[in-house]
């Protein structure tokens, strides 16, 4: 069951078909070269690919922050995006940062504050509600960003290299936190990461993206019952085939 007071709608499918996008004017640079993928409701799909291949741009398109030149997206509008690093507002306290998710979902300020307190307790941040982000460790800020995403009460989450800035130990701890949260809330998750081990550990499926303009070149099963090492090997083989690994 979700944490008390946190109500998240049931997961929703995300379906991306033939999405193309070029950025810039002089001349336009193709970034997304016809992306097709589907994230079934309540599952976690990771995208792994070389740096700069267009993974973050794809998330922007799914979140509605950029309009594709072609293609269709189903499930857009029901997503909450968590960008790289924590992206907490430096001028807001931890409580206010977390409450922002609920406020943007339409909750009153009081209600948002109450939900933020519950999320703070749920994610082990009790005692730090009045601290500003700069005074917290990377792991705490990341937990707060997750709490903010949770309070947005969207059925689908887009996580853009959420733990890329953390050290290995903190990242492993955050994987546990995210896994617990996903087990409770069952959101549909599209996770972008450059860390193959992270993708295999957290996702049910790992999609391998080719170099820019981005297209999905491999779809690897990494769900329960599969061997993580074999899945990681398959991801690396696909990346090597795409010329993304030496």
């Amino acid at each position, binding site marked *: 069951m979700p944490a008390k007071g946190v109500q998240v709608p049931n997961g929703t499918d995300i379906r991306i078909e033939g999405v193309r996008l070029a950025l810039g004017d002089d001349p336009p640079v193709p970034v997304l070269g016809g992306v097709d993928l589907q994230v079934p409701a309540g599952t976690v799909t990771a995208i792994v690919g070389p740096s700069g291949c267009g993974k973050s741009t794809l998330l922007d398109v799914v979140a509605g922050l950029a309009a594709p030149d072609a293609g269709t997206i189903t499930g857009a509008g029901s*997503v909450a995006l968590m960008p790289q690093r924590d*992206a907490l507002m*430096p*001028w807001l306290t931890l409580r206010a940062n977390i409450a*922002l998710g609920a406020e*943007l979902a339409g909750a009153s300020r009081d209600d948002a504050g109450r939900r933020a307190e519950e999320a703070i307790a749920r994610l082990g941040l009790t005692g730090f509600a*009045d601290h*500003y982000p700069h*005074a917290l460790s990377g792991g705490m800020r990341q937990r707060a960003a997750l709490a903010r995403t949770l309070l947005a009460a969207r059925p689908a989450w887009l996580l853009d290299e959420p733990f890329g800035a953390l050290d290995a130990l903190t990242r492993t701890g955050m994987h546990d936190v995210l896994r617990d949260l996903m087990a409770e809330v069952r959101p549909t998750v599209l996770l972008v990461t450059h860390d193959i081990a992270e993708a295999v550990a957290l996702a049910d499926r790992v999609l391998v993206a080719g170099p820019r303009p981005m297209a999905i070149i491999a779809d690897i099963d990494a769900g329960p019952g599969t061997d993580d090492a074999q899945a990681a090997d398959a991801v690396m083989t696909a990346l090597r085939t795409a010329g993304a690994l030496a």
Partner: protein
Amino acid sequence: MSTAGHGQPVSATAPGGSTMPRRRLRRLLPVLILPLLAIAAWQVAIWVAAPREWMLPSPAAVAEAGWDARERLWFHAQWTLLISVIALLITAAAGAALAYVIARSRMSRLAIYPWVIVSQVIPLVALAPLLVLWLPSFAAILVLAVLMSIFPVIVAGVDGLGGTHRDLIRAARGLGASDGWAWRHVRVPAALPRLFTGLRMAAVFVVSGAVVGELVASDRGLGALTRLSAGQFETPLTFAAVVLLALIGLGLFGVVALAERLALPWTRRSTRPRSRS
């Protein structure tokens, strides 16, 4: 403040456990070194060259003239201070508003920003006689002070609004915020530290603007007093007025810095806000 770690916030502690007054004194001493050296060199120059007092008075003569004319100085200082404060408030409001308008759209940036820059290329001192022709004295000085101080506020504001970290905008928009909401609640607060940098510069320039205006268009104010006293070879009084002007500039700078400290608690080194939110 660095905050690397795995769970505990980093707290700001006084290095070496120094008490507050001693720490303040330690910070104040380096500030005083340069003016003390300058006064010493000035006094040595007086002893060596023995110039006439109306050419270069000694520091002691300046202090004595300042004390003797304290009521006159205070009378003029009030006027300069009043104009500077009003001009600074106008500069802050108009500069921030213009920065917002310029940064908000590409069209307004193209239409307004180049002309703001051009306005600074024109020597504003040369505008003073024209302003006196067109406006009452007080208004002319005010306009001059605003024109001389608004540029850094606009530039800092535009840079601040345009330089908001992309991930902060993405975080808000990605949670459903509209573009307008992101401007009001993300870009504007993110721009405040830079805006205050511009305001600190403006606090100094605004005094210069007021003085230029008073030199040309007024019989009141420290600018007018420097003109009158220099014309009557009361050089020690001229120096005293200049010292007072420097103190006013310093004071306004300090007031803006204090306002920044109070308005932007998250930029302080302490880990907790003063009051619970």
